[in-house]
C-alpha cells in the first residue's frame, strides 16, 4: 500500500470527483462527508511522506504501470519509456501547500456556497483542481506536466465563472481560459522543440543529454515566459485582478495556489531541466537571474502602486497577490544570478542560498496569509452586498472573529513580527542587500505601501460607527467558515513563532531538490 502512495495521491481525488454525482443522489450530507474524507486522506498521505522525502533528503521515483514501480528503470533499459513520477523536497513542499489550502477552502465553502443544484459541480471542479495541482507538482514527464496544467486551467476557469447569473463572472472565466489556452499552446511548442532533439519527454533524461544550443535556449524561453504569465508576473499580469475579483471567495483562495503551481513550473524548468552550473556551454545564469529579478522588482512596485488606489476590495487583494509574487521572483532570481559551483560559488554559499530559502519560504507564507485575507473578504462582501470600499463601514461591532482574522492576515502580509511574513521577508531583505542594496530598499518601500493599503481596507470595512442599515445579510458565520479561517490563523501564528523549524524540515530539502551541483 505504501509503495503505491504517489499514484494514490493523484487517483483518490479523481475517483471521488467522478463519484460525486452518485453520492449527491444518496444525500447531501453523504456527499459533503465523502469529500471531507477524500481531502483529509490526501493531507494525511502527504504528511506521511515527510519523513522519507524531507527529513532524509530523499527522492521517490514511481513508474506508472510497471510491474515494480519503485525501481528507476524497471525493464533494465537505458532509455526511460514510461511516465515517471518524482517526489523530491520541492514537490512535497508545494503539494503540502495545495492540500492545506484545499482543505481550508472546502471547510469554508461548506455553508458559504448556497445549495442551488450547482454545488455538486462546484465540489467536482474543486477536486479536479486539486488533482491538477498535485499532478503538476509530482510529475517528471514534460507532456504529463502539460496535461495536468490543462486540467488545472479548465477547472479553474469553470470555477471562476461559477455565478452565471451575474454580468461579469462568465467574462472573467473567458479571460482565464484564454490566457491558459495561449500559455499551454506556447508551452507545448517548447516541449515539441525539446522532443524533436532528444527523443524523450522525461525531464531527467533531457537534463543529462542537454547540449545548450540555440534551439534549446529558444525552447526554454517558450516554456518559461508563458508559465510566468500564468503565475502573474509583470507585464503579463493584467488578467489577475479581473479574474480574482469575480470568483467566489474560497475559489480565489485556491486560485492563488494554482498560480503558485505555475511558479513551481518556472523554477523547476530553470533549475532541474536546464541547470548545469559547471558546464562551460550552459546558459548564462547571471543574465537569466537578472531577467527574473527585473520581472520581480517591477511586479512588486506596480502591484502595490495600483493596489493603493482601488475601490474594490477583491481587486485590491488581487493586486497584492501580484506584488507578493514579485518577492518570490526576486528571492529566487538573486539565487539564480549567483548560481555557480566550486570556487566561484562562494557568493552562492554565503547569500544566494539564503535568498532562495527566503523566496521559497515566502511561497508557503503567501499561500496561507493571502488565503486568509481572501476568506475574510468573502465574509465582508457577503455582509455588505457590494465590493465597493466606499460603501462599507463598521463591521467590527458585529463580526469580531473576522476582524481578528483580518488583522492577523494584514499584519502578516505587511511583514510585521512575529508573524510568518516577517521571517521570509527578513531573509530576502538581508541577502538581497548583499547582492545589490537598491533592490532591497525598493522591497522595503513596497512593504510599507502594502501596510498602507491594508490599513485603508481595515479602516473602511471594520472601523467606524455601527450602521445596521448598510448590512444586507445578517446570518451568523457558520462553523465551517470559522474552522477554516481558524486553521489558517493558527498556521500563520505558529509559522511566525517557529520559522527555524519550518525551514529545517521543509524548505532546506526543497532547496536541495532544486540545486544539485554535479
Amino acid at each position, binding site marked *: 500500500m505504501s509503495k503505491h502512495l504517489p499514484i494514490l495521491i493523484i487517483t483518490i481525488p479523481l475517483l471521488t470527483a467522478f463519484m460525486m454525482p452518485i453520492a449527491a443522489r444518496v444525500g447531501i450530507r453523504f456527499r459533503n462527508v465523502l469529500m471531507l474524507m477524500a481531502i483529509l486522506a490526501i493531507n494525511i498521505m502527504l504528511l506521511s511522506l515527510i519523513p522519507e522525502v524531507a527529513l532524509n533528503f530523499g527522492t521517490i521515483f514511481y513508474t506508472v504501470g510497471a510491474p515494480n514501480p519503485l525501481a528507476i528503470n524497471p525493464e533494465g533499459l537505458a532509455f526511460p519509456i514510461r511516465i515517471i513520477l518524482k517526489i523530491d523536497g520541492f514537490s512535497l513542499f508545494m503539494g503540502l501547500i495545495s492540500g492545506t489550502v484545499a482543505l481550508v477552502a472546502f471547510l469554508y465553502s461548506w455553508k458559504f456556497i448556497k445549495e442551488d443544484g450547482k454545488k455538486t459541480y462546484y465540489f467536482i471542479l474543486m477536486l479536479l483542481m486539486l488533482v491538477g495541482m498535485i499532478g503538476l507538482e509530482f510529475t517528471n514527464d514534460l507532456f504529463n506536466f502539460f496535461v495536468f496544467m490543462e486540467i488545472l486551467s479548465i477547472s479553474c476557469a469553470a470555477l471562476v465563472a461559477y455565478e452565471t447569473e451575474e454580468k461579469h463572472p462568465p467574462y472573467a472565466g473567458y*479571460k482565464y481560459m484564454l490566457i491558459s489556452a495561449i500559455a499551454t499552446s506556447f508551452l507545448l511548442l517548447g516541449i515539441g522543440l525539446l522532443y524533436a532533439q532528444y527523443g524523450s519527454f522525461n525531464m531527467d533524461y533531457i537534463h543529462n543529454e542537454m547540449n545548450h544550443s540555440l534551439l534549446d535556449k529558444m525552447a526554454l*524561453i*517558450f516554456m518559461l*515566459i508563458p508559465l510566468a504569465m500564468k503565475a502573474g508576473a509583470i*507585464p503579463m499580469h493584467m488578467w489577475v485582478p479581473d479574474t480574482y475579483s469575480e470568483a467566489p471567495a474560497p475559489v480565489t483562495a485556491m486560485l492563488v495556489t494554482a498560480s503558485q503551481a505555475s511558479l513551481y513550473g518556472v523554477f523547476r524548468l530553470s533549475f532541474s531541466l536546464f541547470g548545469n552550473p559547471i558546464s562551460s556551454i550552459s546558459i548564462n545564469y547571471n543574465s537569466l537571474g537578472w*531577467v527574473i529579478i527585473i520581472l520581480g522588482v517591477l511586479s512588486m512596485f506596480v502591484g502595490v502602486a495600483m493596489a493603493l488606489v482601488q475601490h474594490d476590495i477583491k481587486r485590491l487583494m488581487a493586486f497584492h497577490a501580484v506584488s507578493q509574487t514579485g518577492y518570490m521572483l526576486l528571492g529566487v532570481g538573486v539565487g539564480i544570478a549567483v548560481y555557480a559551483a566550486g570556487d566561484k560559488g562562494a557568493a552562492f554559499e554565503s547569500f544566494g542560498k539564503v535568498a532562495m530559502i527566503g523566496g521559497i519560504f515566502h511561497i508557503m507564507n503567501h499561500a496561507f496569509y493571502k488565503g486568509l485575507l481572501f476568506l475574510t473578504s468573502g465574509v465582508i462582501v457577503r455582509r455588505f452586498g457590494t465590493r465597493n470600499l466606499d460603501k462599507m463601514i463598521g463591521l467590527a461591532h458585529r463580526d469580531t472573529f473576522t476582524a481578528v482574522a483580518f488583522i492577523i492576515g494584514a499584519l502578516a502580509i505587511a511583514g510585521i*513580527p512575529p508573524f510568518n511574513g516577517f521571517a521570509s521577508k527578513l531573509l530576502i531583505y538581508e541577502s538581497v542587500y548583499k547582492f545589490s542594496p537598491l533592490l532591497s530598499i525598493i522591497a522595503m518601500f513596497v512593504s510599507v505601501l502594502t501596510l498602507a493599503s491594508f490599513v*485603508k481596507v481595515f479602516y473602511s470595512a471594520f472601523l467606524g460607527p455601527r450602521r445596521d442599515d448598510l448590512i444586507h445579510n445578517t446570518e451568523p458565520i457558520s462553523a465551517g467558515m470559522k474552522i477554516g479561517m481558524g486553521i489558517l490563523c493558527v498556521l500563520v501564528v505558529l509559522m511566525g513563532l*517557529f520559522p*527555524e523549524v519550518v525551514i529545517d524540515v521543509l524548505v532546506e530539502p526543497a532547496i536541495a531538490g532544486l540545486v544539485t551541483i554535479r
Partner: protein
Amino acid sequence: MNIINFLTLNMAGVYWNPVLLVILFCILLLIVVVWGRIFFRRDYNRDTGQVKPFNSGLLDEVNYNVQSSNLYWGFRKALDSLYKVMIHNHDGDLNNYLKWMVIIIAACLLLISGGLL
C-alpha cells in the same frame, strides 16, 4: 542555551528569535497594563459624551467617515503621470494581455541571439 539556539533563525547576517520577542512583549504589556490601571483612568466616565468622537461642537450625529478612496490623495497626485499610464493599461482589454507576452518573448529571443542569455 541549546534550546535558544534551536529556536532562532541564524543565517547570512540574520539573527531573529521570535519567541523571545513575544515573551518580552508580554512582560512589557503586563507592566504597562497594571501600571495604567492603577495610575490612570481616574477621569474616564463611560456612558457620557466623553466617548464620542470630536465633532467641533455640532451636537447631532453626522457620518464621521472619510471615504477610503480619498485617504491617499497626496500620494496619488504626486505620482499622477505614472498613475495615468498604469490605469490606462489596466482597463481590461483582452488584446493587451497577449501583446505584452509577445513583446517579452520577442525581447528574450533577441537577447538569446545576441549572446547575452
